[in-house]
């Protein structure tokens, strides 16, 4: 019964669907294409839910390997296409396919041109992101990491608004520079894995073993650590490298910016956990104060930068950057509470930013403008959307009983009680980080009131309220936000043993 749950199917069926859509079989009748895409999306999401169900019933962790002509994919180079799911990724995979499903459904009205190309690129992107989460081999991770670039480049540049080509190129170059650092660090690690015990292999578990007893010169280990960290810092937009994120968010169409902020950032966060925390525990402990300082800068800087943005999407992009700063804060606190909080924020951030971008998309669809000055008083015409905007804004500001609150509480608590080397730093950082509650509230509600509440003084157009499939999408996201906000333990119990295993690595 377990071969039903093969990771190969999970990861490569979207590629199959993409090929079918791109093939001349469908012609250019976009209604069929759309329906086919949506059915594939739903099937894929239900299939990924199966993994959580089986994971709960004690199936420890899934493992799957692709064999070509009987031997591993690149046996000679020690790279074999091995996929596996553990505590964290068993949650991330269904979350990814859920967000994709929502963005596919929403793109019914938001994408007007080149449907065939759009849906095939979306499915390719889905499979590459799943590949990043499930790959157990270092170079396989790198391959999927860079394979993400091409579909997303086209998605941003083809359906974006004003200067989307420029921001797509910026996205491509930033992330590719990051992945250059990654590949150099990986090659260094690969070399030392081979040197320490002779056997050529790039699988992460093997490298973790060889790291401990390896004959690494400490200087080189630091170099590799920073290589990995900068690679992931570009993707998880840490402040100096965040420019690609805000530009590509403000210029891409709504479903793509939903996917970009909800999923693509998680790959950066996942990478830091998988490589920096897993493979270099003692260095991570040594540099955790600096990472904490990075986190706090990230939070405060992004929040303050978000104040005077006149583009709604840029403000929300800065919001995601400050949330990822919180994730880093939780990670660098090096205790169980902090790690739980960090992973919870990773999950909650996906829902909230997806919801926020969906709302901006709906507003853009009706009011045809993104700049704040031209928007005002939509509340009269769209009360239902305003109600959902209420819920999502409260979630963004981490009001209790929404999904963001448990994560933020745990992170602040973890940061406060973390015994990092510089004694008072953790406490100061957590107190500064708590400011996010105030700052986030002020700029998000400034946005909310400017869009919905102020009186509609000039336009006489009749805006029709949100309805049909868009209403269903927003309702589903709000339902998840409230459901996981009221019952956070349901999520935390799944990735609980993952954080415990991380702690053993950190302790040893």
């Amino acid at each position: 019964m377990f071969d039903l749950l093969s990771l190969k199917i999970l990861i490569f069926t979207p590629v199959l669907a993409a090929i079918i859509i791109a093939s001349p079989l469908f012609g250019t009748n976009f209604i069929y294409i759309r329906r086919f895409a949506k059915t594939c999306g739903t099937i894929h999401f239900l299939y990924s839910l199966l993994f959580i169900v089986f994971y709960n019933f004690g199936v420890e962790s899934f493992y799957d390997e692709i064999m070509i002509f009987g031997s591993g994919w690149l046996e000679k180079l020690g790279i074999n296409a091995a996929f596996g799911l553990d505590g964290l990724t068993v949650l991330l995979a269904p979350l990814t396919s859920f967000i994709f499903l929502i963005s596919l459904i929403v793109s019914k009205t938001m994408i007007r041109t080149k449907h065939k190309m759009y849906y095939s690129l979306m499915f390719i992107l889905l499979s590459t992101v799943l590949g990043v989460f499930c790959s157990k081999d270092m170079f396989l991770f790198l391959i999927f990491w860079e394979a993400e670039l091409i579909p997303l480049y086209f998605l941003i540049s083809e359906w974006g608004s004003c200067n989307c080509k420029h921001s797509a190129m910026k996205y491509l170059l930033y992330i590719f520079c990051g992945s250059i650092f990654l590949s150099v660090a990986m090659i260094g690690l690969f070399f030392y894995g081979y040197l320490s015990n002779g056997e050529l292999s790039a699988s992460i578990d093997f490298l973790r073993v060889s790291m401990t007893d390896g004959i690494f010169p400490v200087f080189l280990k630091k170099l590799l650590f920073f290589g990995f960290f900068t690679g992931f810092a570009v993707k998880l937009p840490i402040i100096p490298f965040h420019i690609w994120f805000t530009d590509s968010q403000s210029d891409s169409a709504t479903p793509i910016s939903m996917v970009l902020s909800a999923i693509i950032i998680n790959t950066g966060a996942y990478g830091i956990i998988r490589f920096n925390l897993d493979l270099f525990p003692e260095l991570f402990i040594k540099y955790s104060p600096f990472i904490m300082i990075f986190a706090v800068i990230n939070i405060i800087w992004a929040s303050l930068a978000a104040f005077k943005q006149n583009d709604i999407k840029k403000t929300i992009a800065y919001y995601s950057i400050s949330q990822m700063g919180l994730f880093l804060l939780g990670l660098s606190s090096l205790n169980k509470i902090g790690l739980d909080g960090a992973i919870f924020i990773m999950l909650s951030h996906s829902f909230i930013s997806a919801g926020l971008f969906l709302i901006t998309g709906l507003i853009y669809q009706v009011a045809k403008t993104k700049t704040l000055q031209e928007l005002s008083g939509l509340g009269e015409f769209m009360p239902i959307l305003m109600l959902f905007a209420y819920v999502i804004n409260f979630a963004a500001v981490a009001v209790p009983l929404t999904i963001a609150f448990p994560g933020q509480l745990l992170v602040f608590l973890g940061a406060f009680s973390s015994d990092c080397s510089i004694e008072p730093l953790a406490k100061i950082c957590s107190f500064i980080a708590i400011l996010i509650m105030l700052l986030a509230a002020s700029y998000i509600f400034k946005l909310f009131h400017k869009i919905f509440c102020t009186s509609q003084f000039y336009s006489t157009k009749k805006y029709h309220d949100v309805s049909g499939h868009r209403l269903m999408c927003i309702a589903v996201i709000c339902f998840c936000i409230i459901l996981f906000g009221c019952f956070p333990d349901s999520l935390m119990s799944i990735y609980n043993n993952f954080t415990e295993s991380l702690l053993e690595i950190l302790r040893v």
Partner: protein
Amino acid sequence: MQFFTDNILLIFLLPLLTAIIAFTAHFFKFAISQKTVSVISTVTSIIGAIYAAALYYTYNNCNEITEFSVGWLSIGDLTISAGLLLDNISATFLLILMIVNIIIQIYSSQYFNNQKNYNLYFGYLNLLITSITALSLSSNLPQSYVFLELTGVLCYILTNFNYEKSQISESAKKSFIINRIGDMLLLSGIIVFIYFVLTYPISNNSELLSYKELAETAADFYVYLSDINFYIACILLFSGAIVKSAQFPFHIWLTDSINGPIPVSALIQSVATVSAGIILTIRLLPLFELSEPVLKTIIYIGLFTSVICAFFASGQYDIKKMLAYSTSSQLGIVFPAIALLNIKNTLFYMSVNSFAKVSLFLIAGILISFIPKSSSNMLDMPVSKHQYPFLGFCYLLTVFSLSGLFFNGFFIGEAILGQLLSQNKKIAASFYFLYLLLTSFYLFKSYFIIFKKNKKHFAEKNKISSCLIIPIILSIVFIFYPVFDYKTIILDFSKNYEIFKLFDIIPVSVPISVIAVILAYFAASNKISAPLWFKKLSLNGGYISNLYDIFIDYIVEFFRNFTNIIDYFFNFTAYIVKFFSWCVSVSQNGNIQTYISYAIFSSAVLLVLYLLLIAGIGGI
């Protein structure tokens, strides 16, 4: 009575159910007319009130605690649990809340009768009631934080109810943000205490910071922590209560939240702020009692707020703003009462304050509805005592009870004063006297201005619907309820404070109030008037609110041009690459002799490099 204690959840679920019905009615446009929704909500509030009264009597005399809780969020090996704690404090709160709830439901059923999202209002109202009930019944600190914030959020939604007018939505936004400051401070306090629980072996049971064992855990805290840490932690917690019940630095949000509909601001100013701030301080009293400086700060903040806000209220002409300031000053008095006296009696005073506020707001609502442009300025209220004798009488009654002249307001004031004098806190006592003077001054001034005898432009006497009158009568009745329920409250009250001791203070406090009344009478007919700057200062609340706006704008402006510095760095690298490509294209000029010279030059470079390396390696 066993029935009530068993399914305590019923009192919690009833308003929730009505809220859901109201929401479905609003969104799915069912055949439920407005009438049925308001009837359902009033009926459920009456049932809730009966339920609360039954609970009140079961728990009034014995302080037996029943409590159950279920795990909600796991922190490491401890868990934050969600539970309900029933003892006499929460029973009295529940009773006050439920009665105010009935009054507000009846009033708003009439106040909103023709507006379009009628059901939505009732949905939000019942949600607010559920969150306040959950707050008053919450069994541990994190849970009360959760419902405290939910109350703040729902108050914000309700004040932002008719969001079309930009002035209303701006003030609602500001009040929400200032509430967030309170939540932030309270959360940091909670985090500090949870950190102490984690590091020091304090309480062994899994429920974090639950109120039942707070006494023992508080003692352990005090033992383990140094004084400063303990003081800071307690002040952080207390600051949450300060912001929620609109004490001095944060009283602005109350004056901003009055722009909401009348029943909403009545509910907020009477029960929501009161229950939020006061419940928290009462529940945490065993913690605050341990250290003397914490109690002292509580007393002084309370008194200072009462005086300042009373001063601001006296300068107001807008009746709703005046009532807002009076709420924060009345609440200011409750804090020293909690610190000094036992909690039971402060609850009795707080009930007086709540019901008086409700009645004043409801009367103000009716008065404002008479003014054509519905501005709430007291000067142009075309009402005189003769036209509406009943309104005048009710207004006078509540003003008497609030200003401490009349029977029930009088008792608590004297008790506080006696306690302060006995502990010879001279300054505190003088603060209290000033407070007494100013409260009676601005209350009676407002009465005289509104209900002057000879109003020049008489409005035609339109009939006030009965639905508006009944809630006012109800609230007046419940103001004097403690007087009727003589035995339980007054006797128990006088037992502690030797009744005769009270009477020697009377010669001091009563004449102050009488002088204030006379002053108010003259100020009303502006025969005497304070210097202009004095009036201006108190009129716009000491310019504190626009202090906030300047502060926020300044920070933001500072960071505005900070963010795009990073952009320049990355553009610079792109520029360098472009410059090199220009160099290459220049060197590619097409004629062979340049190519060959470049080729020979670069092969020479290779050879020299080789020789240098040989020499370098050889030399070493």
